[in-house]
């Protein structure tokens, strides 16, 4: 395959701006799939993705397209659109020469599109702005063009105007991909070098590796080495996703495809690693990816102690394709043996949690997320801690630091007032304000990361009726007056419920937390005091009264089986409970230390 006839691109878009729909249209326009097969969105395969309408794992699809009599290979590398997945975006962009910047012409530019477009610009990609949903009556393409220009700083005057829904303008998109995105720069005659873009585990065939070929040609039967891990494998099967798998004898320079070698051990494949011929000429590793630092931590404990190993295996499997996710064993007095997991953000955490439950059928108790704190000891040594339980008493350290993020918020102009109030309530430091167009404003703040995961994002969403978006990047650590907020249930401290917070917020958060606990913890045979404390000082107290009347009036031979099942069902909810000092604490209660997060009730 002549590399000049290859185009590798991805689509950058905010959630719901139409990326999946456009991808479907492109596949369809090129006859890759029949129209009647098109009701499903082809690039989002995971059940979870479809439900949430977001794309989690990057996937690559090859589209054959004839343009002016010449057959081109277009490789669409899918990218996720959420703030937590910048890293995944970066991964995808490294395999591309260009990106479609897809913006909903009625919604306008969102913080994520801006952040991801910056990444693409930084990576030197050609950017093709595309305004989608122009079929909508309230589309405002001129204004949105202006927003793209002022927010991203690229010329958007000839942005394409399309409707992924009706198909209007889709041929222009194909033309632009070929004419505006450069072919890959690669050398077919140099020794083999390919980038591992992604990997998925298939029960029957082992790990399926997604490759972006840079130099040389890879053939079935070749012995290859993963330069980072040193592992050697034989190419048993090669091919492309069209989007169905289609085998091929070889993959040439510049192409995107898959590689199968019956690899069963999850640790053997590292995304971002370089593949080269085994015992071939020595080659440089490709740049790969910067694995990002997880910034949000939460503990997962199997509800059933016996599931600890199962949980470990599941975490290993997930970490295979998600280098941004970390885990290490921990123990808690209240919860037993589990893992402390590190995530890029809250959504990332929720997705991992749901995948563990759905794909691995694990029942877990999860603690409320926390950020990484840093203590500086008297000798000047600094130590990072990932839970309140790890925080020593104040005389053991000199300073306590927390991560600060630079937050960029895009909102309709009418919400500036309330948004500024929310930022102030969350210890935000105002940096600047910019009008992107007459109706949209960008606010920039420095905000402790802990505030973002507490409830800042949810507050932003509700204050702007869902129109506000944010993007953030952790800048560094700052010293602050932070204290450990201890929670006591039935006079015993529950380590998994304790948190670190600013001293001025301790009382308010302590109260909020125990109020929620009061609601979450069922009444027991005895009265249960719940207290919040800072150091030895109790700052708030609630009481759960004892059960007074709970007995079935009738129980005879005909009802025993059924009534026993009724009693068992009433305790069924206890599958996700843990006992601390005689008190059953349900899973939900462990999230009570979070602020008023949306969806709390839905869970």
């Amino acid at each position: 395959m002549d590399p000049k006839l290859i185009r590798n691109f991805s689509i950058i878009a905010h959630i719901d701006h139409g990326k999946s729909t456009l991808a479907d249209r492109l596949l369809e326009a090129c006859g890759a799939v029949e129209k009647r097969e098109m009701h499903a969105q082809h690039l989002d395969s995971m059940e979870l993705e479809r439900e949430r309408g977001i794309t989690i794992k990057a996937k690559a699809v090859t589209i054959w397209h004839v343009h002016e009599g010449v057959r081109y290979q277009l490789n669409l590398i899918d990218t996720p659109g959420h703030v937590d997945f910048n890293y995944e975006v970066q991964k995808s962009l490294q395999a591309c020469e260009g990106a479609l910047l897809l913006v909903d012409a009625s919604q306008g530019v969102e913080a994520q599109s801006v952040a991801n477009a910056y990444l693409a610009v930084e990576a030197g990609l050609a950017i093709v702005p595309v305004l989608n949903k122009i079929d909508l009556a309230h589309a405002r393409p001129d204004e949105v063009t202006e927003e793209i220009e002022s927010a991203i700083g690229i010329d958007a005057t000839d942005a394409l105007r399309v409707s992924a829904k009706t198909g209007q303008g889709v041929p222009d998109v194909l033309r632009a991909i070929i004419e505006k995105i450069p072919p890959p720069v690669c050398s077919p005659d140099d020794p083999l070098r390919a980038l591992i873009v992604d990997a998925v585990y298939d029960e029957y065939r082992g790990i399926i590796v997604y490759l972006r070929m840079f130099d040389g040609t890879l053939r079935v039967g070749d012995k290859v080495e993963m330069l980072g891990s040193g592992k050697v494998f034989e190419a048993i099967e090669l091919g492309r996703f069209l989007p169905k798998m289609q085998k091929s004898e070889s993959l040439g320079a510049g192409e995107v495809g898959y590689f199968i070698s019956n690899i069963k051990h999850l640790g053997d494949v590292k995304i971002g690693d370089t593949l080269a011929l085994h015992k071939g000429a020595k080659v440089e590793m490709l740049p790969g990816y910067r694995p990002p630092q997880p910034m949000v931590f939460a503990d997962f404990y199997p509800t059933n102690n016996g599931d600890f190993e199962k949980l470990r295996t599941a975490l290993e499997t997930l970490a295979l394709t998600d280098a941004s996710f970390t885990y290490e064993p921990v123990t808690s007095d209240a919860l037993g043996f589990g893992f402390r997991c590190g995530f890029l953000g809250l959504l990332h955490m929720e997705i991992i949690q749901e995948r563990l439950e759905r794909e691995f059928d694990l029942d877990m108790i999860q603690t409320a997320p926390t950020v990484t704190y840093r203590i500086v000891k008297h000798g000047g040594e600094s130590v990072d801690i990932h839970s309140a339980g790890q925080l020593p008493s104040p005389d053991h350290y000199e300073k306590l630091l927390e991560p600060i993020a630079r937050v960029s918020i895009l909102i309709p102009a009418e919400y500036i007032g309330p948004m500024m109030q929310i930022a102030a309530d969350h210890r935000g430091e105002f940096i600047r304000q910019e009008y992107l167009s007459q109706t949209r404003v960008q606010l920039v703040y420095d905000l402790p990361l802990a505030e973002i995961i507490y409830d800042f994002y949810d507050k932003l969403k509700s204050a702007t009726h869902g129109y506000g978006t944010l993007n953030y990047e952790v800048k560094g650590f700052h010293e602050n007056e932070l204290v450990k907020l201890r929670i006591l249930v039935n006079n015993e401290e529950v380590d998994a419920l304790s948190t670190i917070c600013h001293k001025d917020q301790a009382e308010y958060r302590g109260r909020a937390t125990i109020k929620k606990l009061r609601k979450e913890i069922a009444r027991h045979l005895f009265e249960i005091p719940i207290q919040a404390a800072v150091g030895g000082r109790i700052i708030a107290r609630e009481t759960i009264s004892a059960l007074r009347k709970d007995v079935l009036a009738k129980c005879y031979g005909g009802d025993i089986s059924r009534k026993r099942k009724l009693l068992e069902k009433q305790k069924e909810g206890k599958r996700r409970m843990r006992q601390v000092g005689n008190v059953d604490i349900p899973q939900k209660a462990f999230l009570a230390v979070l602020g008023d997060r949306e969806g709390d009730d839905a869970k």
Partner: protein
Amino acid sequence: MSFAPRTNPVQRAPGLRPEPGTPLYVHVPFCVAKCTYCDFYSVAAEGQDLPGALDALLLEAERRAPPRPRTVFLGGGTPSFYSVDELARLLDGLDRWSHFRASAEEVTCECNPESLDFPKARALRELGVDRLSIGFQSLEQGILALFGRVHDAEQSFAAFHAAREAGFQRVSIDLIYGVPGQELARWEVDLERVLALRPDHVSAYQLTYEDGTPLAAQLQAGAFQRLDEDQELAFFEATRGRLADAGYEQYEVSNFSLNGQQCSHNVNYWSNGPYLGIGPSAVSKLASTRFGNARSITPWRAALAAGRFPAAWEETPEPSVRLGETWWLGLRTRRGVEPAEVLRTAGFEGSDPTLRLQESLLELGFLEQSAGRMRLTARGWPVADAVARRFLEACAEQTSPRLPRE
């Protein structure tokens, strides 16, 4: 109806034979009209094939009745709804297949006031019944109306007197209290009036809103408000207190006896013993298997007519579940349980998983120990289910936790 524990297709039950002496329960599935709170299986009798159902009961007795049962209980439904002739056919037939008249130390028949008069009581007496349980339910006309009962208080008293006249020493009265709008003082007066009859046994039930009943639907729809927890507790406590003052022993959550006249048939249920039930929806427990007949008349009769086993479901709980169950049932009684005996009854091997729980409940004052037996304290009775759940839980958590590899 909500009850369908399709735990398992019926497999073991047909092969299980009752030991001689096994208590016998007979379910008569007819009533004059359906009461609004009732979730037993029964249908309004009008237009039903009563003699046909009777034939089927006798056919089932022929095939399945235990030899020489220790106790017999005719329940329902309303057994007293049958005529004297039908009752004679039923009881003679039962005796023919089980010889209960020679063996049973207690033969109870449930009766409703509208269908118990002196001739019927005398007939029952002559046919081998020695204990009657009469459904008064309430003396308040408003409550009887809410319940859809077809009799009034006067008829209840008349039925009681008829029983006494016919020579029944053992007569139990069924009552329901804790009804929306009911006043505690009024209930106490009514209870007083009932106790003045000096029945040897009283079953006093706090009103339960069983799923699927018209009463539960009305509650759901907001037609009335159920008493709050404290009110229900007050009714419960007042009932126990008043009955105790009058010399009645609360030998089970809702059952009270004078001079030790407990219902042996029911006591067997609470010690998780074996029993054999015939009739639609009747449940049996043989060995460790509990199984239930088809819940309505048609499939039950069809199975019998075709020579098939009439059960529709069965379950054989794990020993750990049986252990929790035996604790639960046993703790409903004043006699309580003997921990080692519970292990034996349940066929549970290994160390007792409830030890720590027993200790903590003793410490918290919900359980007390006397002469090697554990029972609920006065504090424990009103929360017996919460205690039971803890036992079921402690037993269910039997899978020993594997220690993680480090």
